[in-house]
């Protein structure tokens, strides 16, 4: 890789990392922890998930009933991940 004339200076990278971290931390300063502004839906789930879905586990009720479409997307992501692994390792697997 001699023809690669691009060099990375460590000091420049360090300054860049610190700068980006500070920029990303800037919005977090104004947040008030432990007091989310929107809290009407979670109380609704706690009150009504057992009567509406029949599941005693509220997390499962949300994941598989209220947000079932999202779970379908997660399963699809896993499927695509396996496809990618099969593509990368196909030459090793005779």
């Amino acid at each position, binding site marked *: 890789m001699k023809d690669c004339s691009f060099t990375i200076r460590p000091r420049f990278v360090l300054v860049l990392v610190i700068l980006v971290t500070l920029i990303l931390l800037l919005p977090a300063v104004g947040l008030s922890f432990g007091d989310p502004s929107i809290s009407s839906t979670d109380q609704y789930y706690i009150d009504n998930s*057992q*009567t509406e*879905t*029949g*599941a*005693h*586990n509220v*997390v*499962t*009720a949300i*994941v*598989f*009933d209220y947000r*079932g*479409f999202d*779970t*379908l997307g*997660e*399963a*699809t992501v*896993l*499927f695509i*991940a*396996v496809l990618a*692994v*099969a593509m990368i*390792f196909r030459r*090793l*697997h*005779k």
Partner: protein
Amino acid sequence: MTIGLIGRSAGRLLVPFIFIFGFYIVSHGHLTPGGGFQGGAVIATGVALILVCYYYRECMEKFIPVTSFKLVESAGLMLFICTALAGLVAASGFLFNWLNASGGLFGNPVAYGINPGDLFTAGIIPVLNFAIGIEVFGALSAILMFMFAGLKETTQKEDDAQLSVQNMDAGKKGGRK
């Protein structure tokens, strides 16, 4: 390249319990913490233990080819989609919980409030749990099988030959480390 007799015996002892525990997590997903993703990952851990403990080419490739895991994974995803589409046909919408409190499969009347819970409740949620469990188990096992195929693996005979050579060398030098 093997794990030795102690590791193999421990793996043989542990694998059925790992499978049973994963199946418990999947089937009780609507009652206790856990669910399809977690239980499927636990079952895939058992498959990983088999792969580590035994000789990959001797044990797995002969009896369980990697295509069967891909088939299992696709079957899980298809079960999920078909259950969701059945809600569209039998009731009002995609993924509608039409089995809940219907008296049929997983449709026992639910005792509301604080109670131990009944396994055959919650409608399509256990079905979707099983679908996701099958899919995650197949997906993680297929990934493991694909990655194990990249390893250079020796057979039992080669390992024994190498071990005997090492023992002879140690005997010649007159001692062990």
